[in-house]
């Protein structure tokens, strides 16, 4: 039977093939997720969907169209900009300025020592204090951070996972000392440790005790802090580490399931805590995919929570914060980042996010300045006030393409969720290292696509700006911050009641051994002016510190370059090098300090190995001294330092010094890659760094440069 529809379709197909001279079957493209994107979608594509219900409305199950019936028509999303740097005093100033300019909620970025549970005076964190966030050592810092910001009126989101106990305790005590009872505090603590083991690496304890801490916090807040979100289950960092959208979606929801189980194991009723679970997704440049992802996330979470037996409607609804993608930002032609961020923001809005952070355009190289932060905030203010996107709820509903994509994404994610479940849930999968490896594989594929030019990044591998603009960046004097913090710590230690501190820390240790709730005990310790580091170390006595073992993918990068001339050129050079020197060029790739973002290091390691290098991988969190020992014992030709948290100005000179200490004649070449503002280049070159590779560097070109530098060095000395 012929319908009008199929007649039209046949006609369309003919026209399409005539215009493009391509057979329609060949005209689809494939996304990173392995989803086929067709040139046209029709009504047929939204018949018989598996997860999406075409008749559902906003605020109705399965909540594909949004958690609320009115959405932005009633109240627009919350503009919640993530910020923090240097000392509490400076961050507090910055927050107050932003609130005056139209920002609605606060979102605190802590520095890496705080994340990893070290005080600023710890030798291990020399280069990291106040760099990628604000340094918090005691409750006094937390009080300064919220000075003149009434905590009963401000919702505060805190990105904290590792040192979640002392930091949340400090927040609660800071509230108390502002005369705000904890039951009035509103906001969110990230408290999502599983993804730390997968991608971000700012954990402290091993997975099992870490999960206990998560559950303790859910238990405590569900009873004592009704307005506070006990967890923000985050896919953001997965996408930043290179996960495609299906992996991000599936692993985030699978993490969520694991946290639900952890809370249930405390004897809580699901509806007591589930309404306070919140989510956090990244929004990258794949415009429609990102919209579909948020719709799919709500759809799947509804199904998951129903299966858990939740009855309260609020338990069934996924609410999420979103942030535009940091990894999509480029160092080259940086004003393009404003445009990228705007489209990403629009995706998040069309997907129905509850709050949003838009990145500043300079974040590929440094922390935002006042000026770049203003542009980022205005991106959202313009969307809210000028574009009309708030007038209609879920305006893309019914789009054949969007609905079909939402369903397709849901199906693919569901398969992966079931796979994780069959491994016994996310904690077990994480311990086995499965998700980490999958994400690294995905990251390496993406990088290969950019390096081979099959994916265009404007200003990077195509349409390059012949005259790169100079951009001013925010500079943090971490030595000054560290000195300030150390002074504050010493003052507090001199004036506090040491006996009370010791007793409350001892109680905390006992609580950990007896498996009772740790948050209550750590609040007491913090109230007595115990430091973040002291609370973390007390628990470390019981749980130990976690060290991740590191698996690597291989062959994924090289596969994209079969027959590629530049690639072959490097492998040829490597082979010649081997003949001439009796071994392959050998490079040690390291991270130093507390910066756990290892996507870049991993990609460099695997791709250099695919080009024939021998690549040594250092463990995370190495000190410059450790790196020097490692490099010299393995007699490497070069060290590649990956840095994303701005510690390089302290750590790299330290490394150079340590190398010379062990071997005064060391000829090891050092190159640096990652997030490095151009203002630092001269400083690094003065410290005998041989090459600097910023974000968006082509890895094949980088590898060639490294092998040339190594050869030069050898010839010079022969």
């Amino acid at each position, binding site marked *: 039977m012929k319908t009008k529809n199929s007649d039209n379709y046949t006609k369309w197909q003919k026209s399409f093939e005539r215009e493009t001279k391509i057979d329609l079957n060949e005209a689809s493209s494939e996304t990173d997720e392995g989803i086929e994107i067709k040139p046209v979608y029709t009504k047929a594509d939204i018949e018989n969907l598996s997860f999406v219900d075409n008749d559902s409305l906003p605020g109705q199950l399965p909540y594909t169209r949004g958690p609320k019936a009115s959405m932005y028509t009633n109240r627009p999303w919350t503009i919640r900009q993530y910020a923090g740097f240097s000392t509490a005093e400076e961050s507090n100033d910055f927050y107050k300025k932003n609130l005056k300019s139209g920002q609605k909620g606060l979102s605190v970025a802590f520095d890496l020592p705080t994340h990893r549970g070290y005080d600023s005076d710890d030798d291990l964190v020399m280069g990291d204090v106040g760099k990628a966030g604000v340094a918090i050592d005691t409750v006094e810092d937390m009080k300064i951070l919220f000075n003149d910001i009434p905590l009963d009126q401000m919702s505060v989101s805190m990105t904290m996972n590792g040192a979640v106990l002392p930091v949340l305790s400090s927040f609660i005590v800071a509230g108390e000392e502002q005369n705000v009872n904890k039951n009035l505090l509103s906001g969110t603590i990230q408290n999502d440790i599983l993804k730390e083991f997968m991608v971000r690496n700012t954990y402290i304890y091993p997975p099992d005790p870490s999960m206990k801490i998560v559950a303790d916090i859910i238990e405590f807040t569900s009873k004592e802090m009704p307005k506070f979100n006990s967890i923000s289950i985050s896919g953001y960092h997965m996408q930043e580490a290179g996960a495609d959208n299906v992996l991000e979606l599936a692993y985030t929801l699978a993490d969520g399931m694991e946290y639900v189980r952890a809370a249930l194991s405390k004897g809580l009723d699901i509806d007591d805590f589930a309404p306070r679970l919140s989510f956090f997704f990244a929004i990258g440049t794949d415009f429609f995919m990102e919209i579909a992802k948020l719709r799919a996330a709500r759809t799947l979470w509804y199904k998951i929570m129903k299966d858990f037996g939740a009855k309260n409607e609020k338990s069934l609804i996924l609410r999420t914060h979103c942030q535009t993608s940091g990894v999509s930002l480029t160092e080259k032609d940086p004003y393009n980042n404003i445009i990228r961020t705007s489209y990403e923001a629009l995706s998040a809005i069309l997907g129905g996010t509850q709050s949003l952070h838009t990145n500043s355009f300079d974040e590929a190289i440094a922390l935002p300045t006042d000026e770049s932060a203003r542009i980022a905030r205005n991106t959202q203010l313009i969307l809210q006030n000028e574009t009309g996107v708030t007038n209609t709820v879920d305006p893309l509903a019914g789009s054949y393409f969007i609905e079909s994509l939402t369903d397709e994404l849901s199906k693919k994610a569901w398969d992966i969720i079931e796979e994780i479940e069959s491994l016994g849930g996310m904690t077990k999968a994480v311990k086995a290292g499965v998700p980490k490896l999958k994400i690294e594989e995905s990251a390496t594929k993406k990088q290969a696509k950019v390096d081979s030019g099959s994916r265009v990044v404007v200003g990077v591998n195509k349409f390059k700006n012949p005259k790169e603009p100079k951009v001013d960046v925010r500079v943090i004097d971490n030595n000054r911050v560290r000195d300030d913090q150390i002074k504050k710590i010493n003052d507090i230690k001199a004036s506090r009641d040491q006996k009370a501190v010791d007793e409350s820390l001892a109680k905390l240790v006992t609580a950990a051994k007896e498996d009772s709730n740790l948050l209550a005990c750590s609040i007491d310790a913090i109230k007595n002016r115990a430091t973040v580091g002291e609370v973390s170390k007390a628990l470390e006595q019981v749980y130990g510190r976690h060290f991740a073992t590191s698996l690597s993918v291989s062959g994924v990068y*090289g596969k994209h370059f079969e027959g590629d001339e530049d690639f072959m050129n490097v492998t040829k050079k490597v082979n010649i090098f081997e003949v001439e020197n*009796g071994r392959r060029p050998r490079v040690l790739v390291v991270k130093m300090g507390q910066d756990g973002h290892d996507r870049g290091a991993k990609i460099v390691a695997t791709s250099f*190995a695919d080009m024939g290098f021998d*690549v040594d*991988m250092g463990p995370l969190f190495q000190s410059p001294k*450790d790196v020097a*020992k*490692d490099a*010299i014992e393995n007699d490497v030709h070069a060290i590649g330092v990956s840095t994303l948290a701005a510690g390089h100005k302290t750590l790299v000179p330290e490394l150079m010094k340590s190398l010379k200490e062990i071997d005064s004649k060391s000829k090891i070449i050092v190159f640096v890659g990652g997030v490095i503002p151009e203002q630092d280049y001269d400083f690094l070159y003065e410290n005998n760094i041989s090459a600097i590779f910023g974000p968006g560097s082509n890895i094949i070109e980088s590898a060639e440069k490294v092998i040339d530098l190594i050869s030069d060095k050898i010839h010079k000395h022969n």
Partner: protein
Amino acid sequence: MQLVEKIIKGERAAIAKAITLVESSRENDKKESRKLISELLNKPGKSIRVGFSGPPGVGKSTFIESFGRYLVEKNYKLGILAIDPSSQITGGSILGDKTRMIEISKNPNTFIRSTPSRGSLGGISVGTREASIILDAAGYDFIFIETVGVGQSETMATNLVDIFSLIVGPGSGDELQGIKKGITEYADIFIVNKNDGDLKSEASKTASDYKSAISYYKKSNNTADKEVLLVSAIEQTGMEKVIETIQNIVSQNKKNKNFDERRAKQFTYWIEEEVKEIIQFNIQKKIKADGSISQLSQKVMDGKIQMFEAIEAITQNLQNK
């Protein structure tokens, strides 16, 4: 030779450079390397060489980290040679051992060197033996040699180490059937790792499987007993027993001369290997210079002579040169 003195003084950079030299595939380096090793052999240290092998995933590096920590706390100097596979396709490698040896790699009493296997079969790389001589001369008490896989048990045990241990995981008893002959013959110690948490009972069961397997082994009079040990690398338990066992085996074997015999055999093996390599190198040079292979092969192709006639003619030809 200055390098020798520096090695004996224990200078880290000198030891590292020396290892690079003995691993080098360059002809000049090989000559230098032979000179160096001859000098170092005159100044032997006191080290015990222990081989660790085992299938991937049993926690070899984690065990070495844990056991190593135990040893350096007791003030032993520990050298580690870890061999990682090179890619067959690209020739490159990822040497990630130190990501699993975090604590001991920082310790001043350790020297940890990873080496790519560079396509050498059996997982033992060119230069491992020489590297262990360097570390011995440099004063390391223990030299651990770690390889992937169990296939090279024989090479490892007969070629390189004083004690060969196999690390296995819980539940590996089933695989025992397949590898029984090789391991009962060559391994001195069986270490069952992951004796912790949920895996404890499985680990004990595996240990008894191994115990019963080695009971079939007919032991010759003058060798020490083989041992099966249970450890947990993560919880650092069972480590005293490992060092005790190593020391017992060493002292027993020293008493009954088995220790020296084993080292003597290794020298014979080494000499044989070197001779083979030199002959092969010379022959290859001759073959290149000669050219009769391609001529005669062509004749075989053309049907003018039989293949075996050609082979005989070529060998005759080469021998006469």
